[in-house]
């Protein structure tokens, strides 16, 4: 049995990272030139890592699925990025950011990783400002902050409602600088098909060229996966259409353990589903909860009338409204963490108080804020979000409250990595949302951007050297090796199989069905019976997929249907692992809510005695059951207690 | 010409706009002299001014600078246009309709017609004045070539007047876009002043056009 080793450095919490850096192995400049690194993905983590490796002098090959690195889905993050700068003088510190993150994650994250994240958060802001990221500023010319859920301080830096875009463009510009100077070679419109492992180490990848269909081999001394999350397993999510779990799923099948696959974040403020042709869900930034108040009608009767269109929300008097978050959580109010806010919305809608034609929506009301601050202030803060909302729903949120409902947004789970962000396969690293590391069972708002950039700019450039230090004698790899041959053959076989089925159902129809199963049974609330049922249903669907899917065209062309089919085939396996992971975790924590385990008030009830561990799953073969390994979580520096936002 | 091709797009635009702005000064002087013909039936003022223009050594030297301005403006205009056509080898099925400055679409066309007009105009007046024979006329102030008579004679031909008016209208459109466009190319765009620059450009183009057009119309109809 493999023993999981998180390789957490010794010493007091605040000195671990400093100690690590002081004692790690380095690679001298002459040797860096001889070492090759492959980076898959050009989001915040991938672009920043590739740029930083290039600056250090390594030979870097970076791959992206899009026509340009700038399109990675990090670009869609709206609200902001956290850092412990304490510029507003409201009592923030590295420790407090660390503590809020651990608590927000419901005590299911590694202390050392989270502390490091909080520690480098300040460097990230410095770095981005130096790159020309136009963060919001105050009239005095200094940086502005706003508040996000799960924190009592204002520590979120932002660039209007487009923070992710600006940070990604910063990382993209750094990457472009390296591409221009030749230290990084950029490959666009490539999909990762497999990881190649030679003598137990990751030594290359198999890519599919999305224009020509060519199956290409690339070798390197180390491989970094920065391919984002797998929220699209739910079909409808806030993820982009191309966001997928295939790269990490291939890594899992090649021996990298999968950490906490069931930990999914359901974001509370999304535009509700409105039709079955719908292809994705649109997020409304959490920052809206700074000024918007969430409510549903107090009486079932009013809710019914609103659903039927007989009553308008603006007609309902103040005393007939239930501001349920403010009622239940007076201390944090509308700014409770995402899992809490999402569950509370579901609870009200399930109880029959939901609004909108489907009854699956709650109000996010800005009337008070507009009265207090004036329309122009609200417009300056959220103008682009309001405009986006109006374009989609054809309703003016300045006049009538927004309707929102929770939607799948982020996956805290991912490839298991140690403190160095290395997976259980030596030489294979995972960064950003693709790994499981820092957010425990629930991620706080504005922390994903922080983690992506932390991994890419400030962690991997160090830990990668520590790994490569003993690889300097290893010559460049040739892609003729038998392992490459074998991986390419497996890829080609899989593609041929998909193209030859020629069944009666489109790829999307399977994806939609899988999404519904996942949402109903592995979504916001889970129970044993449902999860067992889901596992059976997913298996059946998978069998049906391989018999009846229709993928038109050939491999040797631009073939979006084939691309989707390859991804959905992986989702059909990943979905099952998620359900399995949710099934064994017989407790509720963060975004993982098992109906059997809740407090009398309906809050998540953890079982720290039995489940204070990271679930790391090992692939053992297509037909055999995966094996669960447990990495126990030790809390040396914080006291583990019931989360309280009241 | 060869060198012009190697200037960067922005350099070409900057030279283009400077040449264009420079050429407007010629239009102003030319118009002022032309207008003299309307205020003096004896054509003495006009002929006197014309005489000054063709005999003053400073003006005669400056004339070559003016020609150079024209040539630069025209050559660069043609080069830019050819490059612009080459930048979209496959055209759209459905024509775009999103231009904000409408006349900008037709700069090459209005420019080309104005250029043809210029050649004819040149043959009619400049060549005749320089190389042909023009009857002199004697006033109290002296004897001058009666260029004014040439003008009056030409403008009594309806066809010529129509051509003149059309060409000048097109010049007006050319100027309307060109004036504000020159400021933009030179980097002079400021939220506070650009609306005024645009208005000034339109007013200037209208004044120049109406001023020039008024002369043949008045002469023809009187």
């Amino acid at each position: 049995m493999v023993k999981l080793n998180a390789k957490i450095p010794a010493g007091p919490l605040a000195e671990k990272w400093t100690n690590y850096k002081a004692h790690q192995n380095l690679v001298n400049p002459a040797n860096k030139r001889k070492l090759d690194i492959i980076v898959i993905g050009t989001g915040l983590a991938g672009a920043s890592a590739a740029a930083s490796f290039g600056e250090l002098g390594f030979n870097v090959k970076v791959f992206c699925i899009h026509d340009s690195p700038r399109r990675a889905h990090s670009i869609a993050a709206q609200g902001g990025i956290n850092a412990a700068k304490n510029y507003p003088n409201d009592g923030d510190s590295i420790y407090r950011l660390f503590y809020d993150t651990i608590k927000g994650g419901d005590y299911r994250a590694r202390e050392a990783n989270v502390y490091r994240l909080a520690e480098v958060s300040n460097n990230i802001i410095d770095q981005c400002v130096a790159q020309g990221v136009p963060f919001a500023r105050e009239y005095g010319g200094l940086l502005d902050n706003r508040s996000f859920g799960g924190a009592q301080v204002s520590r979120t830096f932002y660039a209007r409602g487009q923070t992710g875009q600006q940070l990604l463009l910063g990382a993209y510009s750094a990457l472009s600088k390296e591409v221009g100077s030749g230290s990084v070679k950029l490959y666009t419109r490539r999909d990762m098909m497999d990881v190649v492992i030679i003598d137990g180490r990751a030594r290359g990848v198999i890519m599919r060229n999305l224009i020509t269909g060519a199956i290409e081999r690339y070798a390197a001394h180390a491989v970094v996966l920065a391919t984002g999350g797998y929220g699209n397993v739910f079909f409808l999510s806030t993820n982009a259409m191309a966001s997928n779990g295939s790269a990490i799923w291939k890594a899992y099948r090649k021996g990298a353990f999968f950490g906490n696959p069931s930990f999914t974040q359901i974001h509370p403020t999304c535009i509700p589903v409105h039709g079955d042709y719908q292809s994705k869900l649109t997020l409304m930034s959490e920052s809206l909860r700074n000024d918007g108040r969430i409510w549903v009608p107090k009486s079932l009767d009013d809710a019914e009338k609103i659903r039927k269109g007989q009553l308008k929300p603006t007609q309902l008097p103040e005393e007939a409204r239930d501001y349920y978050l403010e009622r239940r959580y007076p201390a944090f109010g509308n700014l409770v963490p995402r899992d809490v806010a999402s569950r509370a919305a579901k609870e009200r809608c399930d109880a029959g108080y939901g609004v909108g034609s489907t009854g699956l929506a709650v109000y996010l009301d800005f009337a008070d804020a507009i009265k207090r601050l004036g329309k122009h202030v609200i417009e300056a803060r959220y103008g682009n979000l309001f405009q986006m909302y109006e374009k989609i729903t054809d309703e003016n949120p300045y006049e009538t409250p927004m309707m929102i409902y929770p939607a799948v947004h982020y996956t805290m789970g991912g490839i298991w990595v140690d403190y160095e962000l290395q997976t259980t396969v030596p030489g294979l690293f995972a960064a950003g949302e693709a790994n499981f590391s820092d957010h425990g069972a629930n991620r706080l708002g504005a922390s994903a951007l922080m983690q992506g950039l932390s991994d890419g700019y400030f962690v991997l450039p160090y830990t990668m050297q520590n790994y490569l230090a003993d690889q300097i004698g290893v010559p460049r790899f040739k892609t003729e090796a038998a392992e490459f041959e074998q991986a390419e053959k497996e890829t080609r076989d899989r593609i041929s199989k998909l193209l030859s089925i020629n069944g009666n159902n489109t790829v999307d129809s399977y994806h939609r069905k899988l999404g519904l199963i996942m949402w109903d049974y592995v979504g916001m609330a889970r129970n044993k019976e449902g999860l067992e049922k889901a596992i059976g249903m997913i298996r059946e669907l998978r069998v049906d997929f391989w018999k009846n899917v229709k993928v038109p065209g050939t491999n040797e062309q631009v073939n979006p249907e084939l691309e989707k089919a390859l991804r959905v085939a992986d989702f059909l396996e990943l979905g099952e692992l998620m359900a399995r992971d949710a099934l064994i975790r017989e407790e509720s924590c963060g975004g993982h809510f098992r109906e059997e385990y809740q407090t009398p008030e309906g809050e998540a009830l953890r079982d720290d005695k039995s489940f204070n561990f990271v679930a790391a799953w090992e692939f053992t073969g297509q037909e055999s059951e995966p094996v669960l390994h447990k990495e126990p979580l030790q809390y040396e520096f914080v006291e583990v207690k019931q989360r309280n936002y009241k | 010409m060869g060198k012009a091709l190697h200037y960067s797009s922005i350099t070409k635009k900057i030279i283009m706009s400077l040449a264009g702005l420079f050429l407007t000064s010629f239009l102003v002087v030319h118009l002022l002299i032309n207008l003299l013909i309307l205020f003096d039936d004896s054509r003495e003022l006009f002929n006197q001014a014309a005489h000054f223009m063709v005999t003053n050594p400073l003006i005669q030297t400056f004339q070559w600078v003016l020609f150079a301005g024209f040539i630069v403006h025209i050559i660069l205009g043609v080069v830019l246009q050819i490059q612009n056509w080459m930048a979209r080898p496959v055209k759209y099925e459905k024509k775009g309709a999103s231009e904000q400055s409408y006349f900008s679409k037709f700069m090459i066309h209005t420019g080309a017609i104005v250029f043809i007009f210029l050649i004819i105009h040149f043959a009619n007046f400049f060549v005749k004045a320089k190389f042909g024979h023009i009857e002199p006329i004697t006033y109290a102030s002296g004897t001058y070539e009666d260029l004014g008579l040439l003008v009056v004679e030409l403008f009594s031909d309806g066809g010529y007047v129509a051509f003149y008016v059309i060409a000048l209208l097109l010049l007006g459109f050319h100027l309307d876009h060109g004036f504000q466009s020159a400021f933009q190319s030179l980097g002079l765009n400021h939220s506070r002043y650009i609306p005024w620059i645009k208005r000034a450009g339109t007013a200037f183009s209208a004044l120049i056009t109406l001023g020039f057009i008024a002369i043949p119309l008045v002469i023809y109809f009187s």
Partner: protein
Amino acid sequence: MDLTLKIWRQASAGATGKFVNYPVSGISEDASFLEMLDVLNESLVMKGEEPVAFDHDCREGICGACSLYINGRPHGPDKGITTCQMHMRNFKDGETIVIEPWRAKPFPVIKDLMVDRSAFDEIIQAGGFISVRTGGVPDANAIPIPKRHADLAMDAAACIGCGACVAACKNASAMLFVAAKVSQFALLPQGKLEASERVRNMVTKMDELGFGNCTNTYACEAECPKEISVSHIARMNREYLVAKVTAPKE
């Protein structure tokens, strides 16, 4: 809604393309334009025909992938949005909608409605960055920046690199795209240090790639989904002029 779609079909980069008409019916007014195309594609797949290829990803107007020239306008008839944000309520029942790819020499068609926009990446690689390395930078608040400049820089930085400016321009000029980046950095103290090299390198690359020249037509501004102002082009012209005039002799 029932509609006729007149779509450019082209099998690959080298192939000759043509327009093909596709009727679609029962489209909801609340569907987005791309969801309407999804419906068409699903039916094409079931009929055994090739689905229409088009670039798209985030479907919330920020990634810049979608790039359809609809009825003579990049991103269609609505203002200030991308194709994915346009909803079918902007069209009339029974309408014929002409859908074309971006047309420009530096944006060759890859397939159907997909074009290759790597020319934009090349321009950024030529100088669209501030040359700082990871780490070793001053504190974020060390250099105050006037709010007005930061806001203006953000206006320019909002560019999503979709190429609508090039598609809309009668000259297929990339001036608004390049100017947005040049202007963003020129407005910030961090970007001023290499402003001269940046503007010269980026403009040289832009010209080299075969984009047309700016004739100040301002179609780019009218069609930009992020409504980036042409005043940034003026700022670039200014930057360029100063850079050229003050650059040392080579």
